């Protein structure tokens, strides 16, 4: 229930943001609408037991932004090469014991940061298959994720 | 060169670069060679178009266009999702001769349509 209300509040903020007005009436209306739309999909919202540490969340966002720009530049660099000698490959990243929501977040963050692309999650949720655009070393990729996004996610939501 | 001038030049430059990008992406859609290649390019087309609209909004000071960008951000990916499903259900039908599998092991996958 709490999660539901929190999400409704998030939607209320989103509503107000797109409306460009954080007046009380508007926020309330947004909240009501958010709650209504959420109620339609509620059985499929899988958020039980999730809690958020706001500061860690900020840190996660910060990491993401830095990674985003860093790897954007990396792709640019690759493209600048004349011969485009790439070594693409796939790794199976062994996931820590993450919940669906966390897996999703991790996978999306991985995808958004250039160089890596989440392809699939194994049925037992133990492996995340990641495609790398230029992967001289698979273990380096795994270590990168483990020490980066996965760690931050665990910190934020546990 | 004032800041406003800089902005004007930047906007024009941005629009030109984005136009060029749109052309390049279109070329990839045409060239393919495989279906997913074209879909990837289409997906990017949406992204570049959003950039274009945003830059155009700055140029004309008409922010009515912004909502289009928002909607595209939210809904545009649906096209790619639908195409992904399409790829999934068709297999490589039509592309099989372009992308022969690397090994015999995968040859049983060829043209496997669910």
């Amino acid at each position, binding site marked *: 229930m709490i999660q539901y209300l929190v999400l409704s509040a998030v939607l209320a903020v989103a509503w107000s*943001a*797109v*409306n*460009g007005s954080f007046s009380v009436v508007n926020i309330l209306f947004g909240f009501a609408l958010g709650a209504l739309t959420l109620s339609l999909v509620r059985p499929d919202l899988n958020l039980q037991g999730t809690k958020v540490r706001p500061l860690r969340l900020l840190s996660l966002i910060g990491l993401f932004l830095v990674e*985003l720009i860093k790897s*954007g530049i990396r*792709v640019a660099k690759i*493209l600048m090469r004349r011969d485009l000698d*790439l070594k*693409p*490959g*796939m*790794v199976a990243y062994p996931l820590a014991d993450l919940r669906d929501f966390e897996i999703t977040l991790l996978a*999306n963050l991985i*995808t*958004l940061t*250039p160089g890596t692309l*989440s*392809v*699939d999650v194994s049925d037992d949720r133990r492996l995340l*298959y990641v495609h790398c*655009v230029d992967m001289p070393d698979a273990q380096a990729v795994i270590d990168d994720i483990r020490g980066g996004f996965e760690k931050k996610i665990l910190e934020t939501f546990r | 060169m004032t*800041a406003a001038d800089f902005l004007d030049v*930047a906007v024009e430059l941005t629009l030109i*670069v*984005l136009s*060029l*990008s749109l052309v*390049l*992406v279109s070329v990839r859609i045409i060239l393919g060679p*495989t279906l*997913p*290649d074209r879909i*990837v390019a289409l*997906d*990017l087309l*949406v*992204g570049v178009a*959003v*950039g*274009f609209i*945003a830059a155009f909004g*700055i140029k004309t000071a008409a922010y009515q266009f*912004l909502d289009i*960008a928002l909607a595209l*951000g*939210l809904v545009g*990916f649906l096209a*790619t*999702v639908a*195409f*992904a*499903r399409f790829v*999934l259900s068709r297999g490589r039908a039509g592309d099989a001769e372009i992308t022969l*599998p*690397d*090994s015999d092991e*995968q040859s049983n*996958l060829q043209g496997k349509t*669910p």
Partner: protein
Amino acid sequence: MSSILAVLTGILLLVGAGFALIGALGVLRFPDVYTRMHAASKAGTLGSGFCLLAVAVNETSFDVTTRALAGVIFFLLTAPVSAHLLARAAVLAGYVPLGTGKNPVLSSVQRKVASPRSAKDSARP
């Protein structure tokens, strides 16, 4: 203040355009569909994101700024999903990523194809 914002706007725009161009070039130049996907999902997001940020910065009216930021978030929410689904579909359909022909990882993903359809994939949860 406004001139700083104007300059910032211009820079953000140019960065966005640059990323978009990179994405376009990547899609054009990268060797196979998966590598192109990298260019598209990242550069596309960055390109449009920076342009929207430019709008947010440039505009003094509050509603436009918030809306532009919302737009960035919308993109960040959706782009990885479509990239993931497309990549997965391509792998499952049998498009073999470059240089992974004998890769055991790939075959473990693809093994799903060999299994019966209902187990493999069903829209009915």
